[in-house]
C-alpha cells in the first residue's frame, strides 16, 4: 500500500475504529467535497450522529460539526377549560411527528388505587383516547408510549379539562451533535487507514471499509 503522506487533503469513504458487523458501530463517512457524516450507535439505531465539514492540514484532521440540523423532538399542544363538575375530562389525539395518527398508544398515569400504582388506557387506531379523572388540586404526570416511538411525558393540572394533541418522535434517531470542533493529531495516514491521537493522547486507528 503506497504511503500517502500528510500532504493529503481529501478523505473518501467510510472509516471506523470498530470491528465491522458487531452490534455496535462508530464511523465517519467522508466525501471528497470536504463534508462528512458521523454515526455512533447499535441495534436500536444511532446514539449520536452529526454532519459537518473536515479539513486535513499539516498533521491535523479537523472535524467541524457545523452542518447538523437540530432534531425536532416530540411535543404537545393543550386546549384547556374549566367547569364546576367533580371530574375532569382529558381528550387525547396522538400522532407521529409527520401527523400520521398513532395506533396502539398506551396512556399511563399514576393511580394509587391500583395494584401497580399506575393506570391508563389504550388509544384507538386513530390515536384517540378519553380519560375521566377526579378533579383534584394537584398535578398529574402522563406518559404516552407507542411501539417504535420515543416515550413522551407531560403534566396537567387536575383542576382543568384538556384537549391534548401529542406528536411522537420515532425511536432510533439518536441525538445530533452540532457546533463542535474536534482536532485530531494525525500519526499515520495511508489509503486504507489513518491513525490519530485522541484528547487523551491515545492512538486510534480508523480503518477504511
Amino acid at each position, binding site marked *: 500500500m503506497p504511503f500517502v503522506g500528510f500532504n493529503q487533503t481529501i478523505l473518501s469513504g*467510510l472509516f*471506523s*475504529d*470498530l*470491528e*465491522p*458487523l*458487531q*452490534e*455496535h*458501530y*462508530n*464511523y465517519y463517512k467522508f466525501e471528497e467535497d470536504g463534508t462528512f457524516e458521523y*454515526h455512533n*450507535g*447499535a*441495534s*436500536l*439505531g*444511532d*446514539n449520536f450522529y452529526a454532519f459537518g465539514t473536515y479539513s486535513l492540514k499539516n498533521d491535523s484532521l479537523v472535524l467541524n460539526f457545523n452542518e447538523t440540523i437540530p432534531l425536532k423532538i416530540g411535543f404537545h399542544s393543550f386546549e384547556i377549560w374549566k367547569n364546576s363538575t367533580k371530574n375532569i375530562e382529558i381528550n387525547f389525539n396522538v400522532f407521529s411527528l409527520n401527523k400520521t395518527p398513532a395506533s*396502539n398508544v*398506551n396512556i*399511563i398515569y399514576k393511580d394509587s388505587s*391500583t*395494584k*401497580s*400504582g*399506575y393506570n*391508563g*388506557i*389504550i388509544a384507538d387506531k386513530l390515536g384517540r383516547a378519553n380519560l375521566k379523572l377526579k378533579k383534584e388540586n394537584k398535578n398529574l404526570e402522563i406518559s404516552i*408510549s*407507542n*411501539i*417504535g*416511538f*420515543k*416515550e413522551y411525558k407531560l403534566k396537567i393540572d387536575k383542576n382543568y379539562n384538556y384537549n391534548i394533541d401529542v406528536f411522537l418522535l*420515532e*425511536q*432510533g434517531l439518536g441525538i445530533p451533535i452540532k457546533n463542535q470542533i474536534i482536532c485530531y493529531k494525525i500519526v499515520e495516514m495511508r489509503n486504507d487507514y489513518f491513525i490519530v491521537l485522541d484528547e487523551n493522547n491515545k492512538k486510534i*486507528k480508523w*480503518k477504511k*471499509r
Partner: protein
Amino acid sequence: MVPFDSITELNFSEYILSLFNDSNTFSYTIQNSTPDNPEANASTLGLTTTMNDNYLATASNLSIARTMIHELVHAYLNLRYSSPFSFDNGMDFRLKMEQYAQDNGIQDIQSNEFHHDFMGQYINAIAYSLYEWDKEYGTGLGNNDDLGWDYYYAMSFSGQFVVDINGNIVSSSDTFEALVPNSSERQQIVNIILNEQNNNSDAQGTSCD
C-alpha cells in the same frame, strides 16, 4: 449438556415468537437488506428487525441465529415497555425496567445502553434458545450433536461489548463485567463471537452453503 433441571420455560425466543403469533394486534417482522448504516449486523426499530446483507453473507449460521434471537429480544423489550396494557400485569414488567434503569443510572429505557444491559438478565435464556436451535437446525442436524453449553453461553453475550478493529474489547456493559469478572475470560467470549461472526477457521457453527 445444559446445566438446568427445569429448562422448558427458558426457550425464550420460542416464547416471544408465540407471543407475536398469538397476538391480533402486534406482528414481528424480520427482513434483510443492505441498510443505510452498513456497519451493524442488524437493527430493530419497533417490531421490525433488519438483518444486514453483508453480515448474512459472512457469518456462520450459528452467529446469524444468535443475532436473530438478540434482535427478537430487542423487539420484545420495545413491546413490553411501550405497550404495558396489552399484557396482564404489564405495568409490573415496565416498572421493573424503570427500577433497573434507576438502579443502574441509565436515563433512557429505550436506548441501546439500557436494552443491552437489561438483556444480561436473559443470557441463560438466550443461550438455551440458541442451543435448541443448533441441535435442531445447525450442528445437531441429523445427529443430535451440540457444541457444549459453554459455547452457546458465550455466544449469548453479543451486544454486551464493543470491540476495536483488532478484535479487542474497548468497552463492556456492566452486566458483562458482573457476570464475567475476569477480563481475559471476557476476551475469550468475544473471540468466540467474532470467530462465528466472521465465520473463520475457528468457527464451530455450520455455514450457509
